[in-house]
Structure formats: C-alpha cells, structure tokens
C-alpha cells in the first residue's frame, strides 16, 4: 500500500485528526489513540487568563504524534504569518497547516491570502500544508511556490456533507505533484473511504470524531474506512461502465 510521505517524512497512517471540539482532553486522548493517527492538528489561542489550567496539549503525547499547528482564526495572510511564527516559537515545529478564513459563516479559505502567505512561509522555512477550496488551479499555484501538500475541502468545515467537491478533487488528485489531503466536511467513514478510493493520499477529520456519540469508536471506524478506501484504490477499481451506443463497428476498416 505504501507509506504516506510528506516533506520527506513517512507515515503509516493516512488519517490525520484534529483535536478541537472534544468534550474533554481525556476523551480526545483516547480517540486519538484509537484513530491510529500520527499527525494531529492543534490551534493557537490566547491563554484564557480566567481559566489558565486548561491544558489540552498535556494530553497529547508528542513522542507519538506529530503536532501540526494550524493558523485557524487568521483572516489575512499577515495574521496567518504571525500565527505561524508564534507556533514555531512555541513548539519548535516547522510544520504548519495554513488556514486563512475571513468568512465567519462557512469558514471557507481565501485563495488570495492563502497563496500570499504560503509563498512567504515557504521562504521562511516552514513546511506548509495549505487548506484550500477544491480549486485545481490554486492547487497548482501552491505547488509552484513549494507547499508540501495541498488540502482541499470536501465540504465546509463542520458541515459533515462529505465530498461535495468530488469532481474538482478528482482533477486535483490527477494533476497534483504533492500529496493531496482531503480536509473538512468529512462527516462519515464512507466519506473518507470515497476520498481514498478516488486517490487522495490522506484525509483530515475533526468534527465527525469529536462530536460523535462515542468518539473513540468513531475514531476506529474512520481508521478502518481510510484503510479500506486506500486498499481499494491500490487494487484498481473498475470505472462505472456506460452502455455503449449501438452503432456500426469503428475498426472494421482494418483488415485482419
């Protein structure tokens, strides 16, 4: 099946998991463990001075998981760059999920600010994983500036709608020269299986696991779905057949 390779590092798991929205850090930790994920995203926020004890990070074993800080909350390239530098200063980690989402309703990423920030951050030595709408041209532009992956959305964050952008995802997957990580809107294990079947290199899931009735069991379900989808993709699925038009033979003119 092959390992996932991002920026020269290899991983067995093709499921990335976010750490937000869990009912407690302890549940989060158990779900992460059950998911088999090796890369988990974290966010940067102001310390809550009134409740400084909240320490999600303590529950994440950094020997086991690669932390992938995101720039969620950034609405412009400048804000994203500031968050990126803060994240690196906080952790020493150079990997970054670049998220620039000026729209508060759907949290859709801004292509212009994302490309601007990506170019600067790559030059500053960050390993940039940009979150984008499923825009094949934008994906090519980001690869040109040197991002380590592209992360096109399946549907808006938290909407659990699955691969609404499937047609565009297929184009991105076909044309991409870096790993494609489908992120956002993956609400069910069948969604991630579908993403893997069409050739995605990995998926990122947060809301669907964190807000499930039993997050630990749901994490296992997603893990299995990613594996199933990947196996199917590698096994060479048959494309759906259309009925052939009845017509006279096209190659009859070739003599035996």
């Amino acid at each position: 099946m092959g390992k996932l390779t991002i920026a020269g590092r290899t991983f067995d798991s093709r499921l990335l998991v976010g750490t937000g929205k869990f009912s407690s850090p302890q549940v989060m930790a158990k779900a992460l463990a059950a998911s088999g994920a090796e890369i988990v995203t974290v966010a940067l926020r102001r310390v809550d001075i009134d409740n400084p004890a909240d320490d999600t990070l303590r529950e994440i074993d950094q020997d086991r998981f690669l932390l992938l800080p995101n720039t969620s909350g950034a609405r412009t390239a400048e804000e994203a760059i500031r968050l990126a530098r803060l994240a690196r200063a906080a952790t020493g980690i150079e990997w970054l999920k670049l998220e620039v989402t000026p729209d508060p309703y759907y949290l859709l990423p801004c292509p212009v600010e994302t490309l601007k920030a990506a170019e600067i951050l790559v030059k500053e030595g960050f390993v940039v994983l940009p979150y984008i709408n499923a825009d094949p041209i934008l994906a090519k532009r980001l690869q040109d500036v040197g991002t380590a992956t592209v992360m096109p959305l399946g549907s808006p964050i938290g909407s659990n709608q699955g691969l609404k952008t499937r047609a565009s995802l297929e184009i991105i997957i076909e044309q991409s020269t870096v790993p494609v990580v489908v992120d956002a809107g993956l609400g069910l294990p069948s969604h991630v299986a579908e993403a893997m079947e069409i050739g995605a290199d990995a998926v990122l899931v947060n809301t669907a696991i964190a807000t499930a009735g039993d997050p630990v069991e749901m994490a296992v379900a997603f893990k299995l779905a990613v594996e199933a989808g990947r196996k199917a993709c590698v096994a060479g699925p048959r494309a759906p057949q259309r009925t052939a038009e009845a017509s006279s033979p096209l190659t009859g003119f070739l003599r035996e």
Partner: protein
Amino acid sequence: MKSLKVNGVERRFDPDEMPGTLSALLDALGVGANAVVAEVDGRIVRRDEFHRTELQDGQQIELIKLMGGG
C-alpha cells in the same frame, strides 16, 4: 500606577508590584508556562526567554498557547 495590556485587557499595578519579567507576569496570573508563547509589543518571545524578558509600563502583551483545533 503602572499598567500592562495583557491579551487585550488592561491591568493596573502599583508601581512596585508590577511584574518585572514575563515569568513573573505568568506567575502573577497563575498561568503555567507549558506551550505558551508570548508577544511583547508585537515581538515574539519564546518560553525559554521569559525569565530574561523585562517588562515596561504600557507594553502590550499577548500570551498564546496551543489548544485543541482542527
């Protein structure tokens, strides 16, 4: 009275009670330094530099940490 703006909120101190360093500020606020990074007037300060970073009246300080997110 001296003041510092911490995470957008102005905090006042008697002149001799204002924390002299970032470390002291975190102690005063009861904030653990784990995975915290600071900005002082827009300049990033790493955790291992907190004890050496002296604070001045009127500075803007952001205390930022890693938390759960997608």
